[in-house]
């Protein structure tokens, strides 16, 4: 079945940047026709290694050799590696939202006809490719109309159009819900059976173990260990230990819930889609949060969790139709984001780069940006107060940065998330809503963020966690609500919740007719 010679050997790769050795004598062997996963904390060097392989860092900027298909290769650019059959799909999908599926697939690789681009052929070929990835959309559909899961499949179709032999996927399921993730992984298995070799960079240990043939762990720029999954003996703890360098007792810090009375209630919350009148994104949702409680919201992508949260947070999404919010027993109206902040509600957005952070700012400016009045004692903003607020956040959240004047764009994903969290803890909220709080973050940083959420709950505040990672919700929350197509379909307490039950409620199975 598989050739005995490995398809790829990276030998003693070393890559340095001014002041830092990103890769230190890293060797990697990938067998033909296998799915090889690469794990490591943020900043470990995974993406750097793949950039060396794909030609983003051309030959000459690194030491060591890349042996592909038995020959030493010297890629000068991405085009070179693509011509050799190596295609990389980045975490941030490189698709143009306004252009169609076919246009995106052949971007940079246009199908030329007699006088220009032959669109007929392009659409035909695109259709074939979409069939290979089992994506049933019209090739003329603009990308922006597709869900993230579908966009991911378009990227894979694009890779297939380049006759890929070795496909590199960087965090392919990071932005996908369980359902789409499963579809993607099934597709990869299918492609593997047809001879494709894959390298997957991922934080999702469960998925990696389910799909990979081998796993290489990278830590601090060094290849620590390569594990043969098919041989057995590999479990998540072993991977985590290799990634982090120390045994992690558990993925979730210990927490003793100290839950008090209900202090935040939402009743019959109904919100209309901003662009599609008549379509409801929240259908009479009701829920409550108690002091000291961590409440989760589970649902498949598009179910309406973020829409619910944002519509509550100062009506920043959709058209409010009806419903009440009660805080400390009193009915309140949150007509704008400043209203919500003034009432002690903070909302940490799901996309920290696009919606949460001003990447031009430094840490201290970010930390105070949701409540500037706090650092303005008189007529002017007080630099000292800003600095102090920044320092406090940096210390209490253990943000890894030289100082609070470091730009947030320079921080790793985990530290950026902490800075964003710090921003929303600064106004000292009563209720903190976090949307996908650990997306794209390594295991160590996740643990720290869970700890911060636990601390907040222990201090008597309410925490709402919206997440697509069911294990995360199960490990963290005291209660979990499930949402399906804009309606709350159920609520499970800590003891009675498990992935299966949640999934059933999340997919509307066994639920009475949802309006």
């Amino acid at each position, binding site marked *: 079945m598989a050739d005995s010679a490995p398809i790829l050997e990276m030998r003693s790769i070393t890559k340095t*940047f001014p002041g830092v050795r990103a890769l230190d004598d890293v060797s990697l062997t990938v067998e033909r026709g296998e799915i090889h996963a690469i794990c490591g904390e943020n900043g470990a060097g995974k993406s750097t290694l793949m950039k060396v392989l794909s030609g983003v860092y051309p030959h000459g900027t690194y030491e060591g050799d890349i042996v592909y298909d038995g020959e030493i290769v010297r890629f000068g650019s991405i085009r070179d590696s693509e011509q050799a059959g190596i295609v990389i799909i980045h975490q941030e999908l490189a698709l143009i939202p306004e252009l169609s599926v076919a246009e995106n697939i052949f971007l940079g690789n246009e199908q030329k006809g007699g006088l220009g681009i032959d669109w007929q052929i392009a659409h035909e070929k695109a259709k074939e490719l979409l069939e290979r990835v089992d994506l049933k959309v019209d090739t003329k559909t603009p990308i922006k109309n597709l869900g993230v899961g579908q966009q991911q499949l378009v990227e894979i179709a694009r890779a297939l159009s380049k006759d890929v032999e070795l496909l590199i996927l960087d965090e392919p399921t990071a932005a996908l819900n369980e359902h789409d993730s499963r579809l993607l992984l099934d597709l990869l298995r299918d492609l593997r059976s047809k001879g494709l070799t894959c390298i997957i960079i991922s934080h999702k240990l469960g998925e990696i173990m389910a799909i990979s043939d081998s796993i290489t762990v990278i830590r601090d720029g060094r290849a620590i260990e390569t594990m043969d999954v098919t041989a057995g003996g590999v479990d998540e703890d072993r991977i985590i230990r290799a990634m982090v360098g120390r045994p992690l007792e558990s993925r979730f810090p210990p927490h003793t819930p100290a839950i008090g009375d209900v202090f935040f209630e939402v009743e019959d919350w109904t919100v209309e889609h901003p662009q599609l009148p008549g379509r409801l994104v929240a259908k009479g949702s009701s829920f409550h949060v108690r002091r000291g409680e961590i409440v989760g919201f589970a649902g498949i992508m598009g179910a309406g969790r973020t829409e619910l949260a944002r519509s509550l947070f100062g009506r920043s999404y959709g058209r409010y139709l009806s419903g009440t919010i009660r805080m400390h027993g009193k009915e309140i109206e949150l007509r704008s984001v400043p209203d919500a902040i003034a009432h002690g509600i903070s909302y940490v957005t799901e996309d920290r780069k696009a*919606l949460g952070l*001003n990447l031009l700012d430094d840490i201290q400016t970010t930390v105070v940006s949701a409540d500037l009045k706090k650092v*303005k004692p008189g007529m002017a*903003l007080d630099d*000292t107060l800003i600095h*102090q607020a920044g320092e406090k956040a940096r210390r209490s959240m253990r943000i890894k940065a030289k100082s609070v004047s470091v730009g947030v*764009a320079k921080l790793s994903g985990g530290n950026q998330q902490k800075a964003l969290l710090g921003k929303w803890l600064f106004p000292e909220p009563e209720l903190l809503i976090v949307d996908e709080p650990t997306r794209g973050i390594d295991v160590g940083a996740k643990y720290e963020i869970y700890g911060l959420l636990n601390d907040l709950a222990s201090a008597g505040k309410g925490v709402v966690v919206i997440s697509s990672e069911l294990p995360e919700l199960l490990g963290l929350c005291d209660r979990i609500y499930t949402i399906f197509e804009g309606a709350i379909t159920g609520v499970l307490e800590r003891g009675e919740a498990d992935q299966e039950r949640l999934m059933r409620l999340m997919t509307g199975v066994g639920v009475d007719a949802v309006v």
Partner: protein
Amino acid sequence: MTALKELFSGGARKFGMVIALLALVIIFNLTTNGLVVTPTNAQNIIFGNAHILVMTMGMVMVIIAGHIDLSVGSVAAAVGVIVAVATRDWGIPWWAGVLLGVACGLLIGAWQGFWVAYVGIPGFITTLAGMMIFRGLHLYISVQSGTNVRVPEEMWFIGSGHLPEWGPDTGLNNSTLVLGLVGIALIVWGELRKRAAAVRLDGAAPALSVSILRAGGLSIAIAYLTWLFGSGRPGTSFPVTGVIVLVIAAVYWFLSTKTITGRHVYAVGGNRAAAALSGVNIKRTNFLVMLNMSLLASVAAILFISRARTTGPADGTGWELDVIAAVFIGGAAVSGGIGTVTGSLIGGLVMAVLNNGLQLMGVGAAQTNMIKGMVLIAAVAFDVYNKVQGRPSIIGRVIDGVRRRPASETSATAPTA
């Protein structure tokens, strides 16, 4: 090395710009055989460019917020002729005319602000329309009331006046001298405050040598400028119009760095969606920057006509280009979110010195324009090149950038996961 870094807290870009400015002054002084660095010429530079400098402070806020205003020249022209005609034909006193002009500026700003902020028409289109509308208005009024309307004599001091001479004979204009001393006092006070703040924040003040160098250097610069402006022909001084520019600069420095609205402008320009979700009133912020720009355009108009003493058909022509160029030379980013008032002023001075030096050299208007255009491209290209390379400008390698500079961009050369 760290001491050197601490010396220039304004950021590498501004440091680079100041060096460029000094270099230009020196070069032009040589090529014109000393015509540039004279009291009269220094005063002329201020007289001739005060209106541009005032507008750069409004334009930088517009550009930071992510918009642009192409109408400022036309707005200034229209306001100028309105003020001139009103004081001449309606018999209102000159100061009422000034107030009327400012009111017009606010009205125009509100108009443009409405379209940009509340209707959502891009600033480029709105102010392009404004450019046409107000140029037309200027022409219309001129046709009705005469192409060269005389400006009341009582107003002339604003644009062409000097500070009074008084007191003992010090060899310098005493008003300028006082101004200089106040400036030096402010610098010393500012340095002392910086040290006190450093003690509070970091536990220790910077090395005394750094403070002395920094405060000392600036004080010497101010002392020199005081001498330069104050030692002209008797009766001349640092221009009144220059004092106005300084006051406005102080106000806008404060507004942009120390107020919540100022912070909001940067937030809107840096990441609009994040700003909205942080509680910033996007519409109000956009409205205010457009309102403010036209307000400053009206102030610029008053400065200009009170110097020119009559209005003219070419008033305001091309001003927006000078103003916008000044802002970008001063370090603003085309994508918004970045820029400073002081940087834009330095950029404005670079353009002013360029204008002045080339004129003294006898270079014609045509060639001057070509040179100015190339300087603009060179300045911004240098900046863009360094940003793309992922490192601060070459000077910045020695000196850390501070706030308001782009904190960084994720670049191909920086290590990621």
